[in-house]
């Protein structure tokens, strides 16, 4: 399929991919500390609804809207962290609860069907190319990946994330605040979901109820393909996560160009995930 290789398609692919890429980055941090976040899809919706509502309906300044949207998503992340790390609810259930809360809030704010966003700032974010035919939003995503990659390698926070995820008991014994690290990881997951919400607004130019539904599962799939583990925290690398997200993004883009219907695209994605998990086991062998 020659059209897949065109540079114009690279532009479209990366544009569609940027929100998923960021959400996967956040999911990676949460998986690394031994959690899982089901609320990210709803959180992306919440952020984009707040941004669109404040800009278009309330006529607030752009900066206020963007900060409010991202702050709300980050707050949901903090709540996730508190529910799991302080109160002790299992992450899968706690984030299911906040999924319902975030999606409900977003839909209450959205009220009627959709909001069309016509501020040129958003169009520029998606269209204006910086380097290599890549728009600003994609560069922003890649910069965040680079920042997290450096953060994980070179800062105490990065080492603490691996320590807490790898062995929470010994991390606690060696004096790390496991609770604080976990809350921070969930909060960053929320922050990246918030920024992804901004990018969704930029890419689509319109916000509606169904946006980003199921994105949590695509992000978890991408992270798992990238080599993260849902059983054990502390395993996984930033650059591999990016590759995992790219594979999921490219699969969707390639199949859309080929005219594969979205339903079979899901069947293929599930098959690829299974294949990845099985191959991983066959190559690395059973854990002892």
């Amino acid at each position, binding site marked *: 399929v020659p059209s897949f290789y065109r540079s114009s398609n690279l532009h479209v692919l990366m544009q569609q991919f940027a929100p998923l890429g960021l959400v996967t980055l956040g999911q990676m941090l949460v998986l690394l500390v031994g959690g899982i976040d089901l609320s990210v899809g709803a959180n992306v919706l919440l952020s984009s609804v707040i941004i669109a509502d404040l800009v278009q309906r309330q006529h607030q300044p752009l900066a206020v809207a963007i900060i409010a949207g991202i702050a709300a998503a980050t707050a949901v992340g903090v709540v996730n962290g508190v529910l799991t790390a302080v109160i002790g609810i299992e992450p899968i259930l706690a984030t299911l609860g906040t999924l319902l809360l975030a999606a*409900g809030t977003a839909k*209450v704010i959205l009220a009627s069907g959709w909001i069309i966003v016509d501020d040129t700032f958003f169009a520029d974010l998606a269209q204006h190319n910086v380097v290599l035919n890549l728009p600003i939003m994609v560069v922003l995503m890649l910069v965040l990946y680079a920042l997290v990659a450096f953060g994980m390698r070179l800062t105490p926070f990065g080492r603490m994330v691996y320590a807490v995820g790898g062995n929470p008991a010994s991390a606690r014994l060696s004096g790390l605040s496991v609770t604080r690290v976990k809350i921070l990881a969930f909060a960053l997951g929320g922050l990246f979901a918030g920024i992804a919400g901004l990018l969704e607004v930029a890419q689509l130019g319109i916000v509606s109820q169904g946006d980003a539904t199921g994105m949590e599962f695509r992000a978890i799939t991408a992270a798992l393909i990238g080599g993260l583990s849902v059983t054990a925290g502390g395993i996984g690398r930033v650059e591999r996560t990016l590759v995992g997200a790219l594979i999921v993004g490219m699969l969707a883009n390639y199949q859309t160009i080929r005219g594969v219907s979205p339903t079979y695209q899901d*069947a293929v994605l599930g098959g690829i995930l299974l294949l990845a998990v*099985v191959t991983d086991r066959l190559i690395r062998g059973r854990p002892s």
Partner: protein
Amino acid sequence: VSAFARARYLDVWFLALITVGMVILFAAIQPSWLNDRTLQSIVAQNAGLAVVAMAMTFAIISRHIDLSPGSMLALIGAVIGIVYRDTGSLALALLAGLGAGLLSGVGNGILVAGLGLNAIMVTLAAYIWARGLAVGLTHGDPIVVHGGLPGFMNSTWAGFSATAPIVLAVYLGGWFLLRRTRLGRYTYAMGGDPVGARRAGIDVRLYTTLVFVLMGLMTALASVIAIGQLASAQPYAGGGLELDAIIAVIIGGTRLAGGEGHVGRTALGVAFISILNSGLLNLGLTDAHYQLYKGGVLLSVLSVQILLRRLVAEQLRRRREQELLVDQAAVAA
């Protein structure tokens, strides 16, 4: 001992109290909700959830989980619908559905038990591919199924449809399996200490696969119930079923860490979720407010339950310390 036993069930009593409180609250807000048909319709509407949650209890006690029953329900339904449409035989269609359910259970079971893969990953993949396949096979349209199934499933006795005896039988059977058979004992053993279970000579692969087979069979049953009630196989049926089932099991007090739990607790969890859903939907809320209330109630109940459990654990620890002191004093004397 009885005080300890009562303390251990504190979270269950709390859930029961909340459930009764919800009934009173919903009836107070909208008196028409509570009538001589409410129980019957709640049972009929949540029969599939109840059946799947029973099997989910086994999966979670054995320290696994299954995220795929919602999608599998739709896929099994698609198989039943297509076989019925092409052959016109309900018996053949149900047989094919049973086969599909068995196959899904054996497949997930072999991947988890045989290859040692994590159940979340395996069943997350199935959650995605099975839904895709179900929608793809049916081209996104419902397939009409008659041949006496809708008539049977919707036939009523004292207002109860055929789903009521089915759910009752499934829970009695589940209780028997868990408490009185080898499968049940081994399910607790594998969940409590997988390595110890293997060392004790339990065929962990076989019994883990059986747990997933039970899940596949119950999913097939839920699919047949759904088809009977709607007289058609729906490609989007069962959406969110897996999460409601997991909530029912966990909120009932079965621990996600495995080794502990009970189908009786799950029954109460299912009652809680069913009444919450029914009451909220009856208020005529928008989707948005429904999600808000459901999320809020779930998180509050889960939080309080955890605090109660901690309180009980703390109390038990103190009592043991006191007993120890008394014993030591006795020895010293």
